[in-house]
């Protein structure tokens, strides 16, 4: 110790100062924490500001007609006329298909995992479902192009076109024929469904697990079967939480890029049909951002990104509010 102290004295003053600052370095520590937190918040703000600023040319020159659903679909860099509605439509319709397929399946999975599954099976099954979300988007795309589309989408598309294509009103969504490769909005929607199932299922499962056991016990004691308990007690109880889960999944579907680009066909298209190739906002950006030919084109693409950003932002806020409301309602009695 003696040695250490003398050594201490031999050190230059600034090192001693530094050491003593470390000894009582709470200010530095909390300062660092704050600084890093500020960086995280700043990144978010900066993304918004940057998208807003860099889309200025497009916002000023094209104005609101850029978003108009009533204008003719156009994305014409030669004549510099841009309207983003068909891409918004592509994004919304593929996400809608994904949600329609994924929600019932996910809720079924959540119910099975939280209420019915034997306990020893719960952890491995949950993990498998979550692994689905770990598979990279490009791998879904690769599998989609070469395996899933020819094997499933093309036959299903032909069937849907034949069966539903001639029904008035609804038929417009199933006007065929589907391209023989299967590239279509339907393909994108179904791949998206597979990709968002784990998100919705995992969050819904947590919602079910958070419902107090007293609710179940009361219902069962009254003579309800397990299914009746689930359908009439648990689902109504967890509705807002499940809604939050669905919105989270929707957010993921809206922003998904690579898998969609690889299977949707990348075609600007005035048809509303699911069986036709299309474009989503994100696949438009992925295809054309690096290749944009002039300032207005670039700016218009960034405005598309801005619209996408605002849509996912709004969804996230709604989802968090819902999930937060649920977790606040019954935190104490949560099962694990």
């Amino acid at each position, binding site marked *: 110790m003696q040695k250490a102290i003398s050594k201490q004295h031999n050190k230059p003053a600034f090192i001693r100062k530094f050491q003593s600052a*470390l000894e009582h370095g*709470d200010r530095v520590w*909390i300062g*660092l*924490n*704050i*600084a*890093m*937190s500020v*960086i*995280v*918040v700043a*990144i*978010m*703000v900066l*993304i918004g500001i*940057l*998208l807003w600023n860099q889309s200025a040319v497009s916002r000023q020159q094209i104005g609101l007609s850029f978003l108009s659903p009533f204008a003719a679909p156009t994305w014409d860099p030669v004549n510099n006329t841009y309207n983003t509605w068909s891409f918004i439509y592509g994004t919304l319709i593929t996400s809608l298909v994904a949600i329609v397929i994924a929600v019932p*399946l996910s809720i079924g*999975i959540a119910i*099975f995992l939280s209420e019915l*599954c034997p306990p020893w099976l719960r952890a491995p099954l949950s993990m*498998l*479902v*979550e692994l*689905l979300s*770990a*598979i*990279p*988007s*490009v*791998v879904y*795309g*690769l*599998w989609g*192009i070469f395996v*899933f589309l020819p094997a499933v989408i093309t036959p299903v598309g032909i069937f849907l076109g034949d069966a539903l294509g001639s029904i008035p009103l609804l038929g417009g969504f199933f006007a065929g024929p589907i391209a023989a490769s299967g590239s279509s909005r339907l393909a994108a929607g179904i791949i998206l469904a*597979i990709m968002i199932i784990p998100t919705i299922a995992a969050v819904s499962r947590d919602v079910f697990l958070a419902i107090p056991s007293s609710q179940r016990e009361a*219902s069962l004691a*009254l*003579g309800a*079967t*397990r*299914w*009746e308990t*689930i359908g*009439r007690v648990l689902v*109504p109880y967890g509705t807002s939480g499940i809604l939050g889960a669905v919105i*989270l999944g929707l957010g993921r579907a809206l*922003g998904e*890029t*690579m898998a969609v680009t690889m299977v949707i066909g990348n075609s600007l298209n005035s048809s509303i049909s699911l069986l036709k190739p299309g474009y989503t906002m*994100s696949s438009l950006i*992925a295809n054309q*951002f*690096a290749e944009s030919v002039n300032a207005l084109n670039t700016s218009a693409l*960034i405005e598309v*990104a801005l619209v996408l*950003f605002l849509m996912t*932002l709004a969804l996230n806020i709604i989802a968090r509010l819902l999930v937060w409301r649920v977790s606040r309602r019954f935190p104490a009695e949560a099962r694990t």
Partner: protein
Amino acid sequence: MAAMFPAAASTKKAKYISSRKGFVRRRSVNALMLVLTGAVTLLALIPLFWIIGYVLLKGGQYINIDFFTQLPRPAGIPGGGVLNAIEGTIMLTIVAGVIAIPIGSLSAFYAAYHPNTPLGIALRFGTDVLAGIPSIVVGIFGYALVVRPTGHFSLLAGGIAMAIIMLPTTIRTTEEMIKLVPTNLREGSLALGSSEWKTAFKVTFPAALSGIVTGFLLSLARASGETAPLLFTALGNTNFDIARLINGGIASGQSVIAIIGNILLQPTDSLALTLFKYSQDPSIDRINQSWAVAFVLLLLILVINIIARAWVESRAAKLRG
């Protein structure tokens, strides 16, 4: 329960419920639905096994030594590998990690201990928003923030974009792990006169370390599969070869800093980026190689995920006591 058996329900319904026939019917609906949810769960797992099985069987055929040690050959010349993409993925994750770990873990400490301050609320909101931002938008951000000003599609730009993708997961897992560390441990340390930061480093951090590491691994797995943020930042580089860059730098007498700088400013490939490009290629060699890349990528990500999730579970169980 009133909602379930409303008092106003007709006696007919009440009779039905209590009758033998109604009971059998209700029991069978119950059984049917229970089976159905199980079936749905299996249905959802079909794509998982289909993809993994197909990728492993198909991709495995095209894996060989060259695949890991050679640079790509021009289209039409068979053979070659994806060394550029393997090295690129490693470098991208290192750069992303160097940026995301300090920012992520330090802000997680703040989020865990000061959740209700204005900054804490903003931080939580920011984390949620970042988690929800489409990755393609992050790519545009990286382009505008780094590529334009520096004048290079680069490893650095790709790393920064990937770091932004990793931040939310890193922050959330770290925060959760910190919160799991028993308060009395921390209070004990503080009561003994230890400072906040020392407590953080000597008590909280070690206790939460394995959780933090797994959180980082999980976010790494997610980031290494991301393609969209790299399209306009790392761009791709079929000649990316670290050994050559280092040897070249040494041969021309560059300082270490200059060599690192040079590497950071190279356009870089990644496995996911290569997979995307090769899958859009008509050449059968390239398509086969894209399956092999999928094989490596999938294996990497699944192994990390399985280990990390198992670890988090056991660790969390331990900390909960």
